[in-house]
């Protein structure tokens, strides 16, 4: 039959292209009330007063809340964030008050009527400023905040986490190095710009049950945190996730759900909806982390990497959210996909007065890769070596160890094969810098990638399979459809196992925490591998139940039966068998007697043999699987004004096994587009008071379809032994090597090192001028 490796059309495709797929804000009901937020106009300020008296008098207003009404602390790893600011605001756009009203218009009008007075506090506008001895503390009471063990805050400073990696002997490593390069890098915080802004609806039923509908990638995390934050019984919380219009990490963890629950509580449990405006989605809700970094890398004469000393200072913004774990993930993968015997890395999550950061596609890896991939090119220049060859020489392989001293096993992908194929696709040998007849410069740049999920050691997935009267299958798994096409991938995995057509496998699109089997979160590119394993296990469970019933009818041992193509039959005598449809809901004998009952396949998977990391050395085994790949960019630059056009973006990834080629290509090309946009033109601009200047899409420009290059995507398939059919995660990875590749191509084009994003033509023009 063959359902793996085919480009099955995604299950929701027709509704999606016809505009019929419903997103959360499309659902309305007559009893719905509407929330709206008053946000801070200061990046750091003491709240002197909040006057809600006018707002309370306005028509349709049911409740007006301020921080003092809500004595809670939110934070997925570190409890540092009040739902509404208490006493002081820490970033521009922070919610300070909330209104619930009968209509959105009335809620918005009431927000306008709230008057807040602030007293300005000193603003911290970068990690460097935050780490200065004289810096004001953004969180004075950090020592009182609860946090998980894996996170190591440093009270009395602005450091929310420090993760250390100490591998080998860094001193000896540099002593053995013939060439050492040292550079600094940076980029500002930015946004995901998911097409759908975040939204949540909450109500509290008469018996105390809480029902939350949310644009969430992590309904089970929300359910769990509702218990942790509010002491409610998790069994009384139901979180429902519909298909969402782009997550990119920005809808993981807890977003608007906690606050909208409190709004509902304030109006007697009535159903309240809270939807971000685009501007709120950009700055009030968390975005992409910023970074300042220093890298020092040493190599032998032959270009063999000897030592890497790395300091990452992540710009977490005002609150820790996922940023503490991003800084940890960046430490765990700090060297990029290269063999480095001696590593020293301190990865810091630093508070500033910027909008706060959450997960973003690549989760620490797109950030570290920019630093490493640029440094590799600088090193290649200094060694007078081809930068692709330098990568080839140091590419990490089976038998090498990671920065956490974890051994790469036989499941390790073939990075060298990826580099080779990408070099072919981009035409590396034809020259990485060419001046065209009309004076333009065509340049190419390379960037490799690796990524492992950053997740708890006990991360799990579950699946349930039921049957219909025609023998078709319903697959139910707790992974959320966020545009990645996971539901269709799951259908393909089940279809392959049963030897039936993908059309014969139906998927349940919504996730409901009271019905769906438990799933950690739709994050970390682990859905296909972990959910896929759970589905395979559910299929096997269902198959054994089918065999059990059929063995009675066919009067043969269960183990002699095979289920395939809609039949259950004796392996050596295929003509002796039954249709699955006649067994899956119970077999009925000709005289009416029935046996067996319905088949319900249960499947589960939990990550294998993972550990935390040692707080002093980083030693441990935190990574489930590493996805490896090589990327390249070709561009054409006009040296007069430094404007440029990206012509090609290439990626070869070792995906283990390709489940759905069209969707894999979509994920990888989409990732490259996102990363090109980030590296070329995105990033918040701040004034000296910490205000975000470009806080709307009029001034914050993302890549348009017309700016898109030709995307070249290919695959290497080194099986992931423990993955479903050998597959491993590929959802986020397409972003990772691209910022480095773009900066490398531009640096090559102009002969000037570009180590700071975004790479706008004006920034190139200025840097070149200053370098002359």
């Amino acid at each position: 039959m063959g359902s793996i490796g085919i480009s099955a059309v995604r299950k929701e495709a027709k509704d999606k292209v016809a505009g019929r797929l419903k997103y959360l804000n499309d659902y309305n009901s007559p009893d719905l009330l509407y929330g709206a937020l008053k946000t801070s106009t200061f990046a750091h300020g003491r709240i002197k007063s909040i006057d809600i008296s006018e707002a309370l008098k306005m028509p349709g207003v049911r409740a007006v809340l301020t921080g003092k009404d809500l004595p809670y602390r939110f934070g997925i790893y570190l409890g540092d964030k009040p739902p509404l600011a208490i006493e002081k605001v820490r970033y521009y756009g922070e919610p300070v008050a909330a209104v619930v009203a009968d209509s959105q218009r009335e809620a918005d009008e009431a927000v306008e009527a709230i008057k807040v007075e602030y007293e300005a506090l000193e603003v911290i506008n970068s990690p460097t400023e935050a780490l200065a001895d004289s810096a004001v503390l953004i969180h004075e009471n950090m020592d009182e905040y609860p946090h998980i063990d894996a996170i190591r805050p440093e009270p009395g400073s602005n450091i929310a986490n420090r993760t250390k990696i100490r591998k080998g002997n860094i001193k000896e490593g540099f002593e053995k190095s013939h060439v050492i390069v040292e550079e600094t890098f940076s980029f500002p915080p930015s946004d995901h710009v998911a097409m759908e802004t975040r939204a949540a609806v909450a109500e509290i039923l008469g018996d105390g049950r809480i029902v939350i509908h949310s644009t969430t990638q992590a309904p089970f995390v929300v359910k769990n945190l509702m218990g942790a934050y509010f002491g409610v019984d998790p069994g009384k919380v139901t979180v429902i996730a519909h298909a969402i219009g782009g997550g990119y990490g920005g809808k993981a963890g807890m977003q608007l759900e906690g606050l909208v629950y409190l709004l509902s509580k304030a109006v007697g449990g009535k159903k309240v909806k809270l939807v971000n405006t685009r501007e709120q989605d950009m700055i009030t809700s968390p975005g992409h982390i910023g970074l300042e970094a220093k890298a020092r890398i040493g190599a032998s004469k032959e270009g063999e990497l000897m030592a890497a000393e790395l300091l990452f200072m992540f710009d977490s913004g005002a609150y820790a959210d996922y940023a503490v774990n991003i800084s940890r993930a960046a430490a765990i993968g700090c060297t990029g996909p290269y063999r480095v015997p001696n590593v020293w890395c301190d990865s810091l999550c630093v508070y500033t007065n910027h909008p706060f950061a959450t997960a973003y596609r690549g989760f620490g890896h797109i950030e570290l890769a920019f630093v490493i991939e640029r440094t590799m090119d600088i090193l290649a220049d200094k060694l007078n070596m081809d930068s692709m060859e330098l990568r080839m020489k140091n590419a990490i392989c089976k038998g090498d160890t990671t920065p956490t001293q974890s051994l790469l096993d036989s499941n390790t992908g073939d990075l060298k094969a990826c580099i080779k194929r990408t070099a072919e696709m981009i035409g590396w040998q034809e020259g990485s810098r060419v001046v065209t007849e009309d004076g333009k410069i065509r340049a190419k740049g390379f960037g490799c990638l690796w990524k492992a999920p950053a997740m708890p050691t006990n991360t799990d997935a579950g699946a349930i399979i039921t049957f219909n009267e025609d023998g078709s299958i319903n697959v139910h798994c707790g992974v959320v459809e966020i545009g990645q096409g996971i539901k269709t991938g799951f259908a393909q995995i089940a279809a392959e196992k049963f030897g039936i057509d993908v059309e014969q496998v139906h998927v349940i699109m919504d996730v409901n925490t009271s019905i769906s089997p438990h799933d950690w979160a739709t994050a970390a590119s682990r859905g296909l591998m972990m959910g896929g394993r759970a589905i395979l296990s559910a299929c096997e469970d269902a198959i054994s139940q089918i065999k059990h019933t059929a063995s009675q009818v066919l009067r043969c041992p269960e183990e002699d039966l095979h289920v395939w193509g809609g039949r259950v039959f004796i392996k050596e005598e295929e003509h002796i068998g039954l249709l699955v449809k006649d067994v899956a809901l119970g077999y009925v004998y000709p005289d009416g007697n029935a046996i067996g009952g319905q088949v319900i396949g249960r499947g589960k998977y939990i990550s294998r043999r993972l550990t935390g990391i040692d707080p002093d050395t980083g030693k441990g085994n935190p990574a489930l699987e590493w996805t490896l790949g090589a990327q390249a960019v070709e561009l054409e630059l006009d040296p007069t004004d430094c404007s440029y056009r990206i012509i090609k973006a290439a990626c070869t990834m070792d995906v283990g096994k390709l489940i759905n080629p069209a969707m894999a290509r979509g994920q990888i090309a989409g990732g490259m587009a996102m990363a090109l946009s980030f590296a070329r033109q995105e990033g918040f601009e701040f004034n000296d008071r910490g205000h975000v200047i470009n806080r709307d899409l009029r001034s914050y420009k993302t890549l348009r379809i017309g700016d898109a290059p030709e995307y070249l995507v290919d695959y290497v398939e080194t099986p992931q032994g423990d993955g479903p059919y050998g597959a491993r995660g590929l959802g986020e990875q397409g972003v990772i090597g691209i910022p480095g590749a773009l900066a490398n191509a531009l640096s090559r084009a102009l002969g000037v090192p570009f180590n700071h994003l975004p790479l706008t033509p004006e920034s190139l023009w200025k840097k070149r001028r200053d370098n002359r």
Partner: protein
Amino acid sequence: MISFDFEYYRPDSIKEATDVYAQLHEEGKSPLYFSGGTEVITMARKGALKFDALIDLKNIEEMNVYRKDEDGIYFGANMTLNEAAEMKDFPLIREVVRTIGDHTIRNRITLGGNICGRLPYREALLPFLLYDAQVYIAGINGIKALSINEAFNKRLVLSKGEFVIGFKVKESFMDTKYLNIRKVKTSEIDYPLLHIASIKDEEGIKIAVSGLCAYPFRSYELDKHINCNSEPDEIINNVYQFIPGTIKEDNIASAEYRKALFELNLEKILEKWGEA
């Protein structure tokens, strides 16, 4: 959502429009004319624009037409940028308006709105300045026709209650050769750091510029300067005395980069016209 109340009027004739404006004004209200509405919606939503009343000009027939008159081709001010781009008579107009916004928004933005709105770029104006178009302005005392280069000084100078109903361009410009250069920060769909539209006719090279200063401009003195017989270097070195304002510095680009773009592209234009 626009979180304040306002009155809305949709007159069917020019007279009705000016009358309702006058009446609202008399009542002490602050009315605004609009056509496409893109700026009204985006700015009012953010509280950057306040008004007591809106007068929607979309129903005024005279503003919705494109026609060939004896003395030229008339563009109604309500024509959307996409409609204007579909009229093939003046390739420069077509090329210029197609760079404004994206295709979807050009279905709403009108010629009149782009030229008379709040945003400072007003790129649709550039070809009309070069073609010395007539602009038709309606007011309480009827309709007047002015040369656009007289009516325009940093912005189209309109008295209270006046609005633009259309533009007329002489047919003789249909075949005039042109050059159009537009530079952006990164994405094509963005405001211009520099937009130079240029034509060359029997009088010489003419240029109109947006993005460089806080307002678009065309000046006869500037045209005269670039048509002098000096070397391009010299023309560029001495050009700033003919630029009517300071070079803009904002969060999209620095003044020095805009200046560099202007010099590079003015040189390009002089060079290309030189070749032609």
